[in-house]
């Protein structure tokens, strides 16, 4: 008889608290936020401006450490409070992918090179990086713009290239901060569909901060944030068993 194996969540946040400033100027941006996202799951973070969504996302992205609490990726603890338990930059390189409201593509690189650079940074040889970069652009439907610089791409195309870059190193977690805010509703939905496809086909956990309630049907679960607290959302797809509101 074999013992049952438990797969750790792709991303786990334990009682995250983030405090900015001190004394009279103290602002608590996150209050005991806990969250688990499984591999292949697409999660939406909703909430008004200033609720703490972006703070949570940057904390989960290991670029803005919490004041207290732990962050684990695939069961490995990487942050304990503001103490790094590993080389965070190297960890981001291998395990995390980012997409933003603006595509934030590097303007002096072509679409293909923007994807390729993420691979080469992770020690993939240039020829292989080029091949995989082209594959990703093909997957996202922008292979025909591979040789164009970002200023020659539409907003939607730029965002697809940004998604390709985020996917380049087959990350465990993709963090997206209002990725459709600069797009029209049609293109916004296309991008959200893309995230859902990426999560389901490639097994990445995707967390999307969004104000766009029109595409919530594409998410496996939704959470709402208010005053630094996280709770299960009321949307079409609300928090399931693996989500724990703080």
């Amino acid at each position, binding site marked *: 008889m074999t013992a049952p194996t438990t797969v750790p969540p792709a991303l786990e946040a334990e009682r995250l608290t983030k405090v900015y400033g001190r004394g009279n100027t103290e602002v608590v941006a996150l209050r005991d936020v806990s969250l688990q996202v499984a591999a292949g799951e697409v999660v939406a973070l909703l909430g008004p401006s200033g609720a703490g969504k*972006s703070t949570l*996302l*940057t904390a989960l*992205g290991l*670029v*803005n450490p919490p004041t207290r609490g732990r962050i684990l990726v695939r069961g490995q603890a990487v942050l304990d409070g503001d103490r790094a338990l590993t080389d965070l*930059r*190297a*960890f*981001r*390189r*291998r395990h995390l992918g*980012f997409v*933003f409201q*603006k595509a*934030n593509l*590097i*303007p*002096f*690189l072509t679409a293909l*090179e923007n994807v*390729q*650079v*993420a691979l*080469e*940074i*992770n020690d993939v040889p*240039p020829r292989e*990086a080029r091949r995989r970069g082209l594959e990703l652009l093909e997957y996202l439907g922008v292979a025909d713009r591979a040789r164009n*610089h970002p200023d020659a791409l539409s907003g939607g195309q730029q965002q697809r290239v940004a998604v390709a*870059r985020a996917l380049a190193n087959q990350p465990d977690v993709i963090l997206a*901060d209002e990725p459709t805010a600069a797009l029209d509703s049609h293109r916004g939905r296309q991008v959200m569909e893309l995230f859902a496809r990426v999560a389901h086909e490639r097994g990445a956990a995707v967390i999307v901060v969004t104000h766009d309630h029109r595409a919530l049907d594409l998410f496996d679960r939704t959470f709402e944030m208010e005053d630094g607290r996280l709770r299960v959302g009321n949307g079409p797809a609300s928090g399931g068993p693996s989500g724990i509101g703080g």
Partner: protein
Amino acid sequence: MNLAVRDIRHHLARFVLTTVGIGLLLMIVMGMGGIYRGLITEAILLVDRIGADLWLVQGNTRGPFAEISRVAANLEDRARAVPGVAGARRFVSHTVQRAHHGRPLRIVVQGLSWPEDRGAWLPLVAGRPLGQAHYEMIADRTLGLALGETIQLGKDHYTVVGLTQGMVGSGGDGLGFFSVADAQAIQFDEPPEAVRLERAARFERVTRTDLGRVQPALAERGAGPAADIPALGRPLVSAVMVTLAPGADPAAVAEAFSRWPDVTVYTTAAQRDLLLSGMVDKARRQLGLFRVLLVIISAIIMALIIYTLTLDKLHDIAMLKLIGARNRVIVGLILQQSLLIGALGYGLAWWLGQYAFPRFPRLVVIETADLLALAAIVLAISVLASLLGIGKALRVEPNKVLAA
């Protein structure tokens, strides 16, 4: 993937303009070094080329270049009598400025001891050495005189029979070679009225003495040409150059001359030192300091340019950090651009210098050792200039991307 090259390719116009600016600045630094070397070369050119082993100058002076020296022309004959001396020549040198074709023409008039010295040692690029004792000259090209052209100096006309290249005096004026007699005629030329007044003054002085009164013929002789008065000495020369016999001991010959109380003897090396430590030294130090200032200014400008280029890329650098780029990727991006600007600027400076420096009014000498030293300095400047930008880039937080 080389990010530095891709950034440059994307902002090619800005990079080219920056490189041209740095290149021009480095050309000035290179040129200052060349002017400094040219100053030294010009200063010691004649001493090195004229082929003298010893210089006999007026006693207790540092002539004939560092200060005025006057010695009797017959010192030449006395010098020839010293054991170990193979030959002696008179040295006459002075600068004249005349109008020529409506423009000022400065000539360093150089006397050649005709007939022993006809200028055969000169680096002639056209024409021939002097062929007669009078009315011929060899001119340096910087004077702008053509072969066969005639120029009036004093009361006489001189025909250019030979042309030299790069023979200039310590002041940068072109040299003109004449026989010593002609050089002195040019030097001591006086207007006829001044000659008549001098003769009348001589006559007056003689007739006021008893000797003049009892011997009227003496007073009449005094009123004639100076050359007809045996009591008057021959015109003075600036120095006498001595050539040693093969195998002669220079120290022993110099020791023999040093016992003569009316002259001071210098070796060619000592004459060179006098020139460099005296006449040229202040100009040399001034150019040296100016050069140091230019290097510092270049470093500051390069640092500012690299820093500005880095500021333009801070968002992209933050993005690279966010996706996990190592510091060496960021450092490489900035340092490679700095080195490229430095290297291309240096190459441009050298290339432009090939065309510009020969057109400078004074000699610019670019030596390989100086080029290598400047290359090392540019390399150091490029690295130092990038430090400011690198420091800024390494401090930028990856979440700057999110803030944007």
